Structures are given as C-alpha cells and as structure tokens.
C-alpha cells in the first residue's frame, strides 16, 4: 500500500486491481469480458482461458459467430471448415449437441481452500514445497483448478495429494464442445448474504452465450463463524429464504434460457469433531503435543475459527449447528420445489458428506483423508473428487436431462483438434 501511494499513476492501478479483486473479477482482462489469459488472480484457474483478450465477444461459452468458420470465437478449440462437406466443424460437431457451461456460486469449499500440510510439517519441509507459493497466494489459497465443480487439471506438485474429478471435466468429456466453459465464482467466506454480490461477477450473456449448469453450493458459512456468540450470528431460515430469493431473481436476468440451477444443501459438520478431535495436527506430530481439539480451541480463543459451531468440544453446540444447517437446507429444498423462473430450472440435492465418507471407508480409506489436514475444516482434494463423482451419479440418476446427451462427434473432435488448445 505504501508503494501504491508513492506515484499518482500507481495509485490508480492499485485501486483498479483492488477493485477487481474485491469483486472477484480477473485482474488481467483487457477486453473486460470476464475471462483472462493468465491463470491466477481470478484468471483461468477460475474461469475458462480467454483465447483473445482484445475482443469481448470472443470468450469461453460464447455462441459461435458464423459457426467459427474462420476463427475460434468461443475458445473451445473447434474452428475451420470441413473440406468434404464445406460446412464449418463447429456446426457439424457441436450444432446439435446443446453445449452447456458449468458454473459455481460457492464458498471456500467450492473454491477448494487448501494449505499444503508440507508447509507446516517440519519433517517433510523442503525447498520444493514452497516453489509455488506466489501462485497459491495469487489464488487466495484456493485451488479451483482442482475443485470438484470446475477442476480441470492434475498437478504433480509435491504438495498435491489425490486426483482431480469435477462436474466440468465430466460435462466436457460428455461433450467436447463444452471445452473451457467453466466459471468458479466461489469466494472464501461465501454465504447466502454475500453471494448476492458475488453472483454479479458471473459472466454470462443471455443472448450471445450458451446456457449453463450453475451450482449453488454454500455448505457452511451460514452457520459457521468465529464469534463467541456464534449462534446469534448464524443465518435464520427467514433471512436465508430472503437472501436466496434475491439471488434467484438476479440469476434469471443473467442466465441464458435453458440453464439449470443445482442447489446443494449445507454439510453436517459434526464429522469434523467426530473424526479429527483426538488426532495429532501436523504441528503437533513431532512431539505428540497438539491435537485437532487443541487447534479448534486455540482458533476459537483467538476468535479466528472458521466455525465455532462445529469445531467445538461442546456437543450441544455441535448438534445445534447441525440442526440449523438442516433447517437452512430445508429452505433451499422448498425453494427448489416451489419457485419457477423463466430462464432456468432449479433442482435440489443434499450435500451428502456422510455418503461420500461411507463410500470412501468401504474402499479402504480413512474418514480423515477427506478433511484438510492443516485447517481441520475444509474438504480435501480426495473429498472434492469423490463429491464430484457422487454429484454426477446423482444428477445422472435424477435429472439426466440437465446433463444433455453424449456428443457422438467427440472422437472426431479429438482426432482433428487434439487437446483443443488445452486449458
């Protein structure tokens, strides 16, 4: 901030960057279409990589101009003309395939908040572990490119454990025309109130972009906070209802017709205490002197706990927090079944954390593999991937129409366009 105040020109640039970060928009976005050519700072880690940052009409998810006969206007890597039929490839391969994007309005779990355990484990610390710290900081300690909704890459960094699976990857695999069409509008601390503002950074044009499947997934912050009187700061069902109705009304003004909104309920965070409390935290492994119960109490004492309600030794409080979370999930479920909107349909599904844990344990895994080791709170990489698989299966079984049909031209697209320009 001192540097910003030194020169008049710098001050304006600093203010512009600060404004973009506060609005969760890409910092480098010359044509202001909401998509960027760099990865961090809300760039392509969060939203499909722009293939021309000088023209706003060219971006992921755009309906192709003249079927991309001459250039790739929607960044899906498909363009040009088939010499045999004389028709554009985009028309041949994507014309009848009903392309759809994937979006997320979410919280730190949706953004995949993750602090590598190697950063706080002295026995395994090393030079390689911190090599990407600037990139990670530029992404707000979130890893959206490996998240369960918009993840698209498997990183081989020594601080990454697990694999990537996501709704976007699966929808892309189903129809390669959807390549790069993802937007992760998840924000650390996101709840039903501030999501009304966060939703404004979703980039979708009702007439010139394709429809999208938008996930509304706020799994805890409406009941989680670090206040000593935590219950007083939990969202009530009445306020939740009002907040969500505002968001739904706004989305009807930005989502293209034919879109779908998948609302997920809140998590039941009692698993945190149940599986973590007696285990050693990485900071306490060497001497066996800090458990997660100690960490939770410490964060609560400093009033910086992400969730006093569930990260607590008080069973009554943990149960109350789960009851409130269930009541808020019920609000979402009721809204999904009663509200209708012009441009999208709403579907509700529970955030089935218990089911995912049970399936993982049945495969021989441990419940704590699914919880971030450093904060003892967020879903881990493995959890993100398993939740993505569960969500996909649930959608296939219950709302298959949302996912569209498999594109019969996928193999031809692969042969002609390879990795479609990558991500």
């Amino acid at each position, binding site marked *: 901030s001192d540097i910003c105040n030194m020169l008049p020109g710098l001050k304006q640039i600093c203010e512009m960057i600060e404004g973009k970060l506060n609005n969760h928009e890409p910092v480098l976005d010359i044509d202001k279409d909401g998509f960027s050519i760099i990865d961090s700072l809300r760039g392509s880690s969060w939203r499909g990589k722009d293939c021309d940052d000088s023209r706003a009409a060219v971006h992921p998810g755009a309906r192709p101009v003249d079927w991309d006969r001459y250039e790739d206007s929607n960044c899906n890597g498909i363009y040009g003309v088939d010499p045999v039929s004389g028709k554009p490839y985009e028309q041949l391969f994507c014309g009848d395939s009903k392309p759809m994007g994937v979006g997320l309005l979410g919280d730190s779990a949706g953004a995949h908040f993750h602090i590598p355990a190697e950063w*706080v484990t*002295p*026995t395994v*610390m*090393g*030079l390689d*572990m*911190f*090599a990407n*710290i*600037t990139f990670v900081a530029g992404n707000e300690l979130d890893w959206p490119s490996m998240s369960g909704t918009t993840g698209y890459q498997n990183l081989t960094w020594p601080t990454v454990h697990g694999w990537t699976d996501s709704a976007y990857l699966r929808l892309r695999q189903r129809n390669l025309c959807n390549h790069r069409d993802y937007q992760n509008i998840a924000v650390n601390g996101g709840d039903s109130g501030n999501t009304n503002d966060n939703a404004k950074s979703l980039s979708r044009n009702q007439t010139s972009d394709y429809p999208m499947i938008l996930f509304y997934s706020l799994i805890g912050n409406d009941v989680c906070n670090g206040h000593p009187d935590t219950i007083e700061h939990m969202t009530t069902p009445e306020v939740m209802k009002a907040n969500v109705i505002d968001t739904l009304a706004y989305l009807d003004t930005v989502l293209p017709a034919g879109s779908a909104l998948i609302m997920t309920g809140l998590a039941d965070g009692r698993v945190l205490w149940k599986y973590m409390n007696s285990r050693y935290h990485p*900071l306490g492994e*060497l*001497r066996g*002197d*800090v458990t997660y119960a*100690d*960490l939770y109490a*410490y*964060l609560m*004492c*400093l*009033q*910086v706990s992400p969730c006093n309600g569930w990260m607590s030794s008080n069973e009554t409080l943990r149960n109350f927090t789960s009851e409130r979370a269930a009541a808020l999930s019920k609000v979402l479920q009721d809204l999904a079944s009663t509200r209708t909107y012009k441009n999208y349909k709403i579907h509700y599904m529970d955030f089935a954390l218990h089911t995912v844990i049970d399936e993982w344990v049945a495969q021989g895994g441990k419940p704590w593999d699914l919880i971030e080791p450093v904060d003892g709170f967020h879903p881990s990489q493995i959890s993100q991937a398993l939740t993505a698989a569960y969500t996909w299966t649930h959608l296939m079984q219950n709302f298959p129409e949302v996912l569209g049909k498999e594109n019969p031209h996928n193999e031809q697209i692969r042969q002609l366009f390879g990795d479609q320009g990558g991500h």
Partner: protein
Amino acid sequence: VNGGTDCAACTIIVSLIDQLSLVYSESIDQAMQRLCGYLPDQYNTVCKEFIYVAGPIIVDLLANGESPDAVCHALTFCTTDPPNPPCKLYPQPRGGLEAGIKRSKLRAMKYTSNLRELLVN
C-alpha cells in the same frame, strides 16, 4: 482478539523453527536460516529481515524452554485482551501459561530495540 491471525501466524512460525532445530539437530539460529532458505527469493529477503530483528529473542526464549505461545507474547504478536484469557496452542509451559508469558516478556526486555523495530515494521 488476543492478536488474532497475527498471533496464530507467529506461533506457527516459531513452532516450526523450534521443531526444525530438533529434526535436524541444529541450533535455533540455524533452523531459522533453514526455514528462510526454503522460501523463494522474494520471500527469503523478508524472512531474513524478520529473523534479523526477532531472531535473538526467539533464540533466547526457545533455548530457555519457553513455548511458542509464550515467545509470541514476548514478541507482542499475541496479546491478552481482557476479559479474554490468554490463548495457547501448545501445552502449558512450566508454572503455567501466564507465568511463562510473564517470564518471556521479562527476558525479552533485554531486546528493547529489536521489539521497537518489530512494532514499527
């Protein structure tokens, strides 16, 4: 409250220094250099500046068996804001946390100029 995230960050860093010295059987001073050496260049410089100022206090207190919680109180990153009790991540030092904090603060008074520089920066 009580230093919040600054306190937590300090406690983690001091704890890592303490544990690195144990893992590699080296002095606290060497462990601090090691920790800074792990960081990319742009952070390495800031880290070295930090240990230049805070290092002597950290070395003195850890060598005398104080806990990271007490050290961070002495470094003023952690505070005790009434009516809140002091916060601790690690087990009680000898004589209890409050005694450990008092002892550490007294000992850190030898380094008044370092503490002043920490506050300023």
